[in-house]
């Protein structure tokens, strides 16, 4: 188990370095190779030559590529200083870059937005797991029944309807129509109760989409597992059917669901862009949307990095949970 863990952690660390390099290349080197002046994209539309030169100096864009990559890496671990035009900006470690658009270091922005996204993703995940898995199990057990067909139609709707549609609809009904919720985000640390009520609609909207997907995969997996020999063995022992389902079938069904959950959570932490922008939640997704709109390259780079890290971390957790759930994994 320990060697397994160490191996996975090592793999994650290697991936991290690869990701950072790739992200750096995508955002800093590819435009350079394509002949686009990166510095001008940092200063906005009315690019005064002096302004472009200032950014070029601060970012060290005139330096050789390996120096730039090195500075970028170094910034993450020991921080870096941007100097140019008589102005010096220090960006403390971990420096994920500096936005010349809003004049802020990226890292504090990310740490400020992260809890919002985390709360959204985790809350919705709990909801969709409960809804999706139980609907999927019930459908599998009552396959062909009215319930099964109904649930699968709803699931299809859930998968097909875009978040901005369901989101706007729920806003129109519950916030602007019935006035059940205020529809404004209140940080958990300010008022947990208001945070909770403010998050209900986003949670439900997001969970609706994912619950649908999870119901479908749960149903399919469950039906497959129920055909396994060891389920027959469990029944041959004289186990009650509910125990067979709960203890034997569910545990195996959880494996693919866990894989999906890891990936989905990772991706969501990187930013539930649509949900956050629809409900105006100040999370990472909304941040990256604004960054794209404002051409705020460093923020896009920062969020991309954080997203990659989140996916990486989620995968690591899934790998470890895998080993806990499936003893066979430890050997591989």
């Amino acid at each position: 188990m320990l060697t397994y863990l160490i191996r996975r952690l090592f793999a994650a660390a290697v991936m991290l370095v690869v990701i950072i390099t790739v992200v750096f290349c995508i955002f800093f080197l590819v435009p350079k190779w394509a002949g686009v002046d990166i510095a001008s994209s940092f200063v906005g539309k009315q690019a005064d030559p002096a302004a472009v030169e200032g950014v070029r100096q601060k970012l060290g864009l005139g330096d050789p590529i390996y120096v730039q990559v090195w500075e970028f890496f170094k910034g993450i671990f020991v921080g870096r200083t941007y100097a140019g035009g008589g102005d010096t900006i220090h960006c403390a470690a971990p420096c994920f870059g500096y936005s010349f658009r809003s004049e802020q270091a990226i890292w504090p922005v990310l740490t400020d937005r992260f809890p919002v996204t985390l709360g959204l993703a985790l809350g919705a995940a709990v909801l969709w797991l409960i809804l999706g898995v139980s609907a999927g199990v019930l459908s599998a057990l009552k396959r062909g029944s009215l319930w099964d067909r109904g649930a699968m139609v709803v699931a299809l709707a859930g998968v097909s309807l875009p978040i901005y549609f369901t989101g706007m609809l729920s806003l129109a009904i519950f916030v602007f129509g019935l006035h059940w919720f205020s529809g404004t985000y209140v940080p958990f640390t300010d008022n947990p109760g208001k945070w909770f009520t403010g998050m209900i609609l986003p949670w439900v909207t997001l969970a609706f989409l994912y619950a649908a997907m999870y119901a479908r995969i749960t149903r399919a997996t469950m039906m497959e597992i129920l055909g396994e020999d060891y389920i027959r063995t469990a029944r041959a022992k004289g186990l009650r059917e509910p125990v067979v389902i709960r203890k034997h079938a569910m545990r195996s069904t959880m494996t693919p669901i866990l894989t999906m959950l890891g990936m989905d959570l990772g991706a969501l932490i990187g930013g539930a862009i649509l949900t956050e922008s629809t409900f105006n939640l100040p999370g990472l997704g909304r941040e990256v949307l604004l960054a794209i709109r404002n051409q705020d390259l460093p923020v896009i780079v920062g969020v991309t990095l954080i997203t990659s890290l989140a996916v990486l971390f989620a995968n690591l957790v899934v790998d470890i949970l895998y080993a806990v759930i499936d003893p066979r994994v430890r050997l591989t």
Partner: protein
Amino acid sequence: MTTQRTSGRRKQALAAAAAVAALLTTAACGGGGDDNGGSKNGAAGFDAANNKVAQASAVKKGGTLKFGGAQDADSWDTTRGYYGFMWNFARYYSRQLVTGKTEPGKGGAQLTPDLATGLAKVTDGGKTYTYTLRDGVTWEDGKPITSKDVKYGIERVWAQDVLSGGPTYLKEVLDPKGEYKGPYKDTSADKLGLKAIDTPDDKTIVFHLPQANSDFEEILALVSASPVRQDKDTKSKYGLKPFSSGPYKFESYSPGKSLTLTRNTSWKQASDPVRKAYPDKITVTFFSNANELDQRLLNGDLDLDINQTGMSPQGRTTALKQHKANLDNPVSGYIRYAVFPQSVKPFDNEHCRKAVIYGADHVSLQTARGGPVAGGDIGTNMLPPSVPGAEGQKYDPYELAGANKSGNVAKAKEELKACGQPNGFSTTIAVRNNKPVEVATAQSLQASLKKVGINAQIDQYDGSQTAGIIGSPSNVKKKGYGIIIMGWGPDFPTVQGFGLPLWDSKYILQSGNNNYALINDKAIDGLFSQYVTTLDDAGKEKIATQINHKVMEGGYYLPFVFEKFINWRSDRLANVYTTDNYSGMYDFVNLGLKSAS
């Protein structure tokens, strides 16, 4: 029997759909009770604040004025902001030597003294401007604002390598050769090394222009000429918390999320003839979803849109139906148009340009822009109606809003013949991919040109790369962009503030070019030179009219609309009016509330 049952079921479905629709409309309506006619306590009525003051008498001191917005400012640093709403909003926390009058419509475009005791004393043939500062003008810490603070604030425009983004007119007028390197590289002890400005004492400031520019005072009225105190200058981070010289100061600001201003207790009403400072507090909430912003305006959660660029199509439709009394429909100052780069054949020939102008269906272009209310009146020339010297639709050399408004095929074919292309030709329309309305106009144009034998392809380019793609004449030529769809609004309401970068040959740049048509007309250049040395308003207006005529006669542009917006004002607002100073936006600085609660 079966048909009956089916229709019964269909009825049920219809009823359900109707119920959802009803729910949505009531939801959208939110606020309830309606008053399209306008009333004293409720909404003032449609267009009640367009170029006139609505409900001025209802205003009470106090309360919280709530702005919402879909877009944060580029920067709240007075030196760095370029968005029109930022200039408008910056008057809350910054003062200038002179500023636009707080009057509706055209009045707002006239200047009035602010920090200065009067308008400039202009001497030396328009090359020297002298101002004296008022008594009692203070910073938010109570210290007096001096002429040196004004000079330092203006000097910051030279530090483009640190403070990028804002307008650079001051630099171009006061130091066209670029001799000064900006305060951060200034070697003099007081960092006040700019030679063009003298501050003989704390109350007096004198500007020495190398060449006269009759719009100089307009340029001084821009917020980029606001004072900044040297010991409070946080350089690139200044926009996160500017040090206030106005009636309000920054309490908190989180970029892209929210901004709160509270009263600056050091500001004295007696020292400020312009600002009334009615509310106690001003909040701005930023939304990532324009529809939600509109919903909150309709719902009464917010008072107005800080961006002032018009409501989104959805919110606009609901508002026009149910809350017309809360809307104003001002002219925005923007002209939306197509422009023909002369480097791309056959647009080097004016007859081919005119063939497009005549061939286009102007009504359908107007419809693509949003129709007469949300889109604007059919544009007939290239000077926005809010700019002095403009004639609006009265000047219509190609009868675009008259006889030829649906396109004149015969006339277009005549021009094609004159151009030597009797069977038409092929060309490419360049349009930003992030502006759906512009894409729609391109498609409309494409359709009507087909009728006269001009085959236009549409090329949607990355809208965020405008400067590099269509701002590069060599690229435009290479790509064969014969028609470019764009829009333009004045930085300040004069022909220079609008048209100089578009029409003067000096402004043909290799990148970041805005003279897309590559107009190189000695007559136009000459008129601009004449304009900057003409000091009387009547003379300036006359030249503005002449420049507009020259541009139109050349056939470089096909104007679509004199743009109009639908802007929302809540029931709570009092003393609301639009101003030409900020291109038809509400004048933020003197907005008040009807009740302090």
